[in-house]
């Protein structure tokens, strides 16, 4: 991981820049930490990892690395509540996430390694339908345009998505992050397939999100420049059947 010392990327916020924190509820949510305690995961009958704990505060980033098959995608799906942990707890502040999964899900964006793009719709239509799925009744055209511009997709905006290259589809999937606000971003290999320009735009989006008080969990092989990210290497938490039995006693 490269750590840039650029002060503009530091998670420290200058008082005047907190223009987005209007409501009291939002201000409160910035104090809340996302806490994982002793999480263990099974896929089918197979144990994947165990004993993972972390704390993620507002403005912080967690970078998850590990060998193929170590469970990076599983951890992200667990954090997105698409998977239930075998043991352990996931807490938003002091409330277990599974007690009220709907409000927790409203706070997160999940970008998996699949792009969720329909070939027959255009990029603009995809962004609009994703925003509507998140509960934004009438997505503003300017917001969609801004998201497309942030990832340089303006020329491709009205093409059917089957015309987009793999890298452009990745950019479109990432542009979804900017169309509706959510404090927690869960990104699974976001830079896979991106060229240098795409990578820079991704890093800018990440930096802006962290500076505005958001938090990010990224699973990645490739280096992504994120200021002061905590590293979590999953190889140390490999679960095998023997280890799980040993833990149970």
């Amino acid at each position, binding site marked *: 991981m490269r750590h840039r010392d650029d002060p503009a990327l530091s998670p420290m916020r200058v008082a005047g820049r907190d223009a987005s924190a209007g409501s009291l509820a939002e201000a409160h949510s910035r104090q809340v930490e996302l806490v994982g305690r002793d999480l263990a995961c099974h*896929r089918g009958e197979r144990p994947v990892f165990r004993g993972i704990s972390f704390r993620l505060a507002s403005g912080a980033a967690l970078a998850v690395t590990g060998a193929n098959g170590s469970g990076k995608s599983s951890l992200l799906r667990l954090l*997105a*509540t*698409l*998977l*239930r942990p075998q043991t352990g707890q996931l807490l938003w502040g002091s409330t277990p996430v599974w007690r009220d999964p*709907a409000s927790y*899900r*409203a706070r*997160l964006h*999940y970008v*998996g*390694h*699949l*792009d*969720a*793009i*329909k070939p*027959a*719709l255009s990029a603009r*239509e995809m962004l609009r*339908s*994703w925003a*509507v*799925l*998140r*509960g*934004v*009744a009438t997505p503003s055209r300017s917001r969609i345009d801004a998201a497309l511009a942030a990832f340089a997709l303006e020329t491709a905006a009205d093409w059917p998505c089957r015309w987009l290259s793999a890298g452009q589809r990745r950019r479109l999937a990432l542009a979804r992050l900017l169309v509706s606000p959510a404090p927690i971003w869960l990104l699974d290999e976001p830079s896979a397939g991106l060229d240098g320009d795409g990578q820079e735009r991704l890093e800018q989006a990440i930096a802006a999100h962290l500076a505005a008080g958001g938090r990010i969990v990224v699973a990645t092989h490739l280096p992504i420049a994120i200021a002061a990210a905590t590293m979590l290497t999953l190889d140390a938490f490999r679960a095998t059947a023997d280890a799980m039995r040993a833990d149970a006693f």
Partner: protein
Amino acid sequence: MTAFAGLFRRDLRLALRQGSETALVLGFFVLAVVLFPLGVGPEPELLRRIGPGVLWVAALLAALLSLDRLFQTDYEDGGLDLIALSPAPLEIAVLAKCAAHWITTGLPLTAASPFLALLVAVEPHGISVLALSLLLGTPSLSLIGAIAGALTLGARRAGVLSSLIALPLYVPPLVFGAGSVEASVAGTGGRAYLLILGALSLAALPLAPLAVAAALRQALE
């Protein structure tokens, strides 16, 4: 409500743009019905007796064709993750997809049925009852079929498997649907059958999405 309307509109737009699903379902329906007079002979008396049943069975089989693609594309391209993570309950999203599915399959089948009823010599006053029975029964076909489609996500031979799961569950609508036409043609009145058919669809409306959502959450794990 927003997510329901948005998902419904999106699925309709996709079906309109891709266009082939409605055409396939209608084409199969027409071909299946045309085969029967060719197979059993053109004797009007025989056709009159089996006509309503033939039409209902053909509509069933045509509805089965489109089942496995109800959730399969979303599952394969990652869209199902996003639907599951939407703030709206998964059951509402399932209702939206079933509604869009019904409009692209059940409704065209109902619209084509009067013309095909002429092919199998259904009595004139039975044709309207037939169309009404399909109108009342095809929603339950979409809803029950969605259960089969969701249960077989990611399985090999998902198409055949979902048909095997759905067909036994389709027997009640089939019995009451075909029965309503026969009863009305025989003069005893198909009203009771139609009411039960409507009740089946109404019962499936809240119950099927619960089952489908549970199956989808299982598939996503």
